[in-house]
């Protein structure tokens, strides 16, 4: 059976997290991960950092953003009518 090198696994980590690979590649990668602690650690720590980024709700819209946008559009709608 063909196996993947650590380097090949590393190249696919991002695709793996995005679930963006063939079932065959996924199987190969998972076989490698079961046997290679180093790569498993790399995958898990990368995944964890991304979870932190995605979870972070500090990325808010500036105060009043929606309101200002609506004002701007209201003016445009007025123009469009006339």
């Amino acid at each position, binding site marked *: 059976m063909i196996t993947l090198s650590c380097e090949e696994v*590393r190249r696919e980590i991002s*695709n793996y997290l995005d679930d*963006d690979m063939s079932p065959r590649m996924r199987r190969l990668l998972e076989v490698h991960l079961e046997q290679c602690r180093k790569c498993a650690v790399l995958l*898990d*720590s*990368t995944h*964890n950092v991304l979870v932190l980024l995605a979870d972070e709700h500090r990325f808010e*819209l500036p105060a009043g*953003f929606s309101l200002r*946008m609506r004002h701007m559009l209201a003016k445009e709608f007025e123009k469009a009518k006339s």
Partner: protein
Amino acid sequence: MQNTLVRESENDRILEGERELIAEILAGNHERYYELIAPIERRVYYTAYAILRTEADAEEVSQEAILKAFRGLRTFRGEAKFSSWLLSIVGNEARMRLRRRREVSLELLKSPDNEGEYTPIELAEWREIPIEALAQKELAARLEEALAALPEIYREVLILRDIDELNIAETSAALEITVPAVKTRLLRARLMVRDYFVSRSWARHTGLRKAQP
């Protein structure tokens, strides 16, 4: 995780709903444009912000793009989602402004995609980013720090994909780069931001969770 069929039919439903809404707006019911914009205004803003990095510019560009999309709504082909279309307009506008500002930094020129393999830091033991160990405020500061430390081309792809949660195709459209380029940059960006965390002394071990795709 949803299966592909469910996702596809959901997608069709969204497209159908959008088409109806757009038809109404075009028929003169302009106020309903708000409904089209509201669910994605946050993503619009962060797409602009990812590229421009200043709040005022990001807001202006968001408004311009939203306006442009309204004026050009008749030209929108309902084959893709409205959000993808709008986000690609935002990406274009933001990059045009960036060029005008002549802020294409040297940093960007110095970090092409093909500078070879990126080798992530190796860890000898199980480690995890200790979410509980950091106060929320500190965590936010660390994340900001980690993002700021990334070269521009990696930061923008990471923000669009992992914070804005655009898909690969939308990210590609917003940045006007190819899908393979998005993937290459994304891999590098993710490994770099991960390294930023694991290399810091405040990021010490507790337990481990298995990564699920």
